[in-house]
């Protein structure tokens, strides 16, 4: 049963492997160019494990010491993780002893893989979640350490490979759209995010978008739950 779970997890995380390999390598190279030996990206990818924050942290680590500012910046950049926790509440709360690791390793990509998982018969969900989470982190840590070691030796033109992450999210969104008949949450998410991006700009739109999404979803609770009861 473990072997079956591992096989399913390897297959489910292949897109993440491709994305993390390039983004992790690029992160390690960036750190090495900023003057940090390879064990810094290794350590940070192990204990922080949050891609976009780690990229932002390259300049934070080069700036003067500012623990409070750093903490606030981290919470703002990572606020979207709150939504992943709420989405996985039931599944992860029932995971027992491994729940803390599952929660610790809930990145954008691991969330996407697990929330949309088509878990094979006979595989316990929590075992599947554990392997996807562990594999994803292994890809990320290994790639960042390798990037730190290789440094600027890497000169291959990989521009655009990070699109693999966008593609992962788009294909999962398409799968969610086709899987159900209730499309209002997806439309709310898209509209609120696009409008907030246009209004607040790329650096400040996530938190307003999250607030609008929650308020709009709560406002739609009556009609959405009524539709569900009708079995539509």
């Amino acid at each position, binding site marked *: 049963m473990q072997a079956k779970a591992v096989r399913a997890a390897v297959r489910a995380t292949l*897109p993440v492997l*491709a994305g993390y390999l390039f983004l992790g390598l690029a992160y390690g190279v960036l750190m090495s160019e900023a003057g940090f030996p390879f064990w810094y990206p290794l350590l940070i990818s192990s204990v*922080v*494990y*949050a891609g976009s*924050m780690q990229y932002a*942290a390259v300049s934070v*680590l080069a700036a003067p010491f500012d*623990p409070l500012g*750093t903490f*606030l*910046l*981290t*919470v703002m950049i*990572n*606020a*979207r*993780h*709150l939504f*992943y*926790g*709420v*989405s996985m*509440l039931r599944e*992860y709360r029932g995971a027992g002893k491994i*729940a803390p690791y599952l*929660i*610790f390793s809930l990145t954008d990509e691991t969330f996407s893989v697990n929330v949309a998982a088509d878990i094979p018969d006979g595989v316990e969900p929590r075992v599947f979640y554990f392997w996807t989470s562990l594999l994803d982190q292994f890809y990320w840590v290994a790639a960042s350490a390798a990037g730190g070691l290789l440094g600027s030796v890497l000169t291959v033109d990989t*521009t*655009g*490979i990070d*699109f*693999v992450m*966008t*593609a992962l*999210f*788009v*294909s999962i*969104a398409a*799968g*969610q*759209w*086709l899987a*159900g008949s*209730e499309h209002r*949450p*997806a439309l*709310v*998410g*898209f509209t609120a*995010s*696009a409008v907030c*991006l246009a209004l607040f700009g790329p650096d400040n*739109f*996530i938190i307003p978008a*999250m607030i609008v*999404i929650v308020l709009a979803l*709560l406002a739609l609770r009556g009609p*959405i*739950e009524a539709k569900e009861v009708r079995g539509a």
Partner: protein
Amino acid sequence: MTTAQTLLTIAVIAAGTMLTRFAPFLLLRGRELPGWAAYLAKTLPSAVMALLVVYCFKGVDFTSAPFGLCELTACAAVAGLYVWKRNTLVSIAGGTALYLVLIRLV
């Protein structure tokens, strides 16, 4: 920064990140999920996936050529391939390959 300050900064970043990941589980520790939380747990996944897609577009400049057309075309290809083949890997590989070609041509 000294080495100690660098390590402390890394610890602060780790703590801030973990706060955002653990908060929902710590705040809703009770046995039964309140109705609004169960409702959000069901509706947020598709809303947040749309947010993530938009998030990937945050660096794209729609006001000057090529107006994000490479990204939009490749995303349409990913979605189209998914609807056609119902296979995540095929749609990601196809869309990314198309994107790599497009950005080198345009």
